[in-house]
């Protein structure tokens, strides 16, 4: 809190500096107010992306035409009428960021939405910024662990990668994102930015409450532009989120940013573009809809040591309709990102949750973003699951199968079962590796499929209470050697003696 005498002293200093320097403003007059877009005459010096102010509102210039300027409002602007004055500010849209933002919920303009004190900004970060160049980057080689076995084993994500989460509504896209945030809890956690675009306020409130319960809110910032907010705020929200992420990245930190979801972002941009009378293209989206997302996602980067060694990992979310991943926006974002996690409704309905279609999901970074420990068990699992998927198609015909095929099918069922995971229960890598090693080495072959989850739970408790040495070995990140293998075998054998199906 600044002392009152300091405030008075600073005011007196400002007054004493009163000089003949003029303040020059470029002004305009409102001609039209259309659904959150203002058409104003004048403003001959306005720049694209410049903030302009109305008597009780503010906006951003988006179109510069011959005789007028189009401005998107940053709030409802119901009291703006024809003839009102609008002034330029000379500033491009930016957001004030500081460490105080951690644990807070803000809107895309940086204003708090959680009822707490105003955030004192340490630096103004521009919302629009050119992404880091090739020379400033480093290859992605450090894992970002989600705590979800299916992802960490077969679709590994690295720090600095863009991995799309795509699927129909209600399949657990946001659940994967939240589990990833919860899993970052550590001494020096990865800073998380969750950008909620066009969502219900009740949904955002639930997410915030869950993060608080799991103590994940201390390293998370929520940027919310809800369904009832102006389309301009929904359009700006992801850029505000990445601007906040860049602030922390420049300090050498690793940041995870989740855009939930970019489909609604595209809708908001389409709405603005149509009101701005920009030419409509396919599905009424404007011609630069690809650029809207590409310039956003390009800002996810892994910087080299010379530039601070920070990173931004992006998990954009896209909602499909009826599983159609070949629609316009999904194909655009798939082509931009470094892989996708495809969630399927059929899998969700038969109880496989997370409902990840491993066959259609990919991580283009692959093993480079996995620890040696995980790599040594995951490769075998991926292969066996692929074989299982091939065989499962034939098994549907009901023909008699040979013993080897039946064994393969049974093993595949157990692998699918072990990859199931309850929500809000991300696992540390050591336990993930333990589970996967157990199933790939046949220790679950004699356990009924329905008992697998109980087996896994009790195995984890057993190891945590009595076999800490195994966990420590699996946490080192090195490839599983003979000694570790012997230790794992002994552990599983000891556990199976006490486990009753």
């Amino acid at each position, binding site marked *: *809190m600044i002392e009152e005498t300091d*405030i008075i002293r600073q005011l007196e200093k*400002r007054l004493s500096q009163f000089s003949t320097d*003029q303040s020059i403003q470029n*002004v305009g007059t409102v001609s039209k107010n259309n659904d959150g877009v203002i058409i104003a005459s*004048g403003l001959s010096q306005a720049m694209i992306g410049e903030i302009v102010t109305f008597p009780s509102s503010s906006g951003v210039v988006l179109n510069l035409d011959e005789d007028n300027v189009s401005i998107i409002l940053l709030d409802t602007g119901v009291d703006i009428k024809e003839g009102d004055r609008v002034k330029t500010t000379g500033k491009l849209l930016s957001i004030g960021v500081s460490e105080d933002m951690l644990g807070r919920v803000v809107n895309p303009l940086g204003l708090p939405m959680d009822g707490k004190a105003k955030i004192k900004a340490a630096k103004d970060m521009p919302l629009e910024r050119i992404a880091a160049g090739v020379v400033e980057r480093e290859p992605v080689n450090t894992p970002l662990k989600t705590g979800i076995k299916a992802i960490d084993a077969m679709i590994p994500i690295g720090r600095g990668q863009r991995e799309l989460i795509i699927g129909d509504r209600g399949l657990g896209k946001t659940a994967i994102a939240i589990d990833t945030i919860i899993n970052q809890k550590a001494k020096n956690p990865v800073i998380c930015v969750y950008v909620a675009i066009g969502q219900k306020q009740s949904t955002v409130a639930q997410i915030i409450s869950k993060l608080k319960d799991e103590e994940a809110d201390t390293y998370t910032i929520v940027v919310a532009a809800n369904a009832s907010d102006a389309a301009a705020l929904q359009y700006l929200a992801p850029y505000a989120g990445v601007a906040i992420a860049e602030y922390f990245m420049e300090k050498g930190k690793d940041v995870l940013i989740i855009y939930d979801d970019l489909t609604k972002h595209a809708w908001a941009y389409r709405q603005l573009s149509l009101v701005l009378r920009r030419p409509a293209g396919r599905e009424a989206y404007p011609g630069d809809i690809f650029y809207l997302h590409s310039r956003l996602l390009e800002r996810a980067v892994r910087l080299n040591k010379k530039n601070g060694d920070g990173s931004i990992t992006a998990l954009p979310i896209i909602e499909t309709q009826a599983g159609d991943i070949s629609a316009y926006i999904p194909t655009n974002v798939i082509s931009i990102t470094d892989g996708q996690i495809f969630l399927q409704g059929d899998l969700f309905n038969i109880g496989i949750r997370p409902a990840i279609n491993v066959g259609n999901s990919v991580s283009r970074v692959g093993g480079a973003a996995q620890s040696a420990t995980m790599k040594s068990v995951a490769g075998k699992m991926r292969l066996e699951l692929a074989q299982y998927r091939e065989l499962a198609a034939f098994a549907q015909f009901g023909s008699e199968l040979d013993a080897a095929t039946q064994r393969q099918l049974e093993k595949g069922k157990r692998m699918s079962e072990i990859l199931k995971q309850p929500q809000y229960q991300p696992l540390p890598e050591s336990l993930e590796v333990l589970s996967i090693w157990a199933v790939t080495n046949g220790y679950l072959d004699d356990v009924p499929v329905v008992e697998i989850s109980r087996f896994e739970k009790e195995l984890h408790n057993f190891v945590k209470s009595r076999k800490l040495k195994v966990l420590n070995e699996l946490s080192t990140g090195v490839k599983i050697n003979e000694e570790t293998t012997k230790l794992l075998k002994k552990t599983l054998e000891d556990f199976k003696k006490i486990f009753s199906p």
Partner: protein
Amino acid sequence: MAKRLHKKISQGLISLCCDENYLSLEKVQQYTKNMNRSRLKQCICEFKNFVENTSVFIDTPKELSIKDKDTLSSFFKGKKIVYRIDPNLILGLKITDKDMVYSFDLSSRLQNLREDVAQNYD
């Protein structure tokens, strides 16, 4: 194409309605008498732009001396200067030239200070 033609006609109308760079009331009434609503609206818009482009508005808290007016006129040759009194300025003057506003007044300084304090201090 149609819009440009319309603009040309409107600009032609302005030159018809002017007397030595000033709008003439008689001529404006004569030429706009039979116009429909949309045409009239466009004309009004063009007339407003014409007045803004050819005039400079100088706001002062009190009446300026002839010498001051002459000095200010020399800065804006070829333009009509409209002097307005606005006691709210407290001191100084404010010049509005088309869409540029040059604030030399104390009131805007105090307003800037007020906004600065509101933004930076709790």
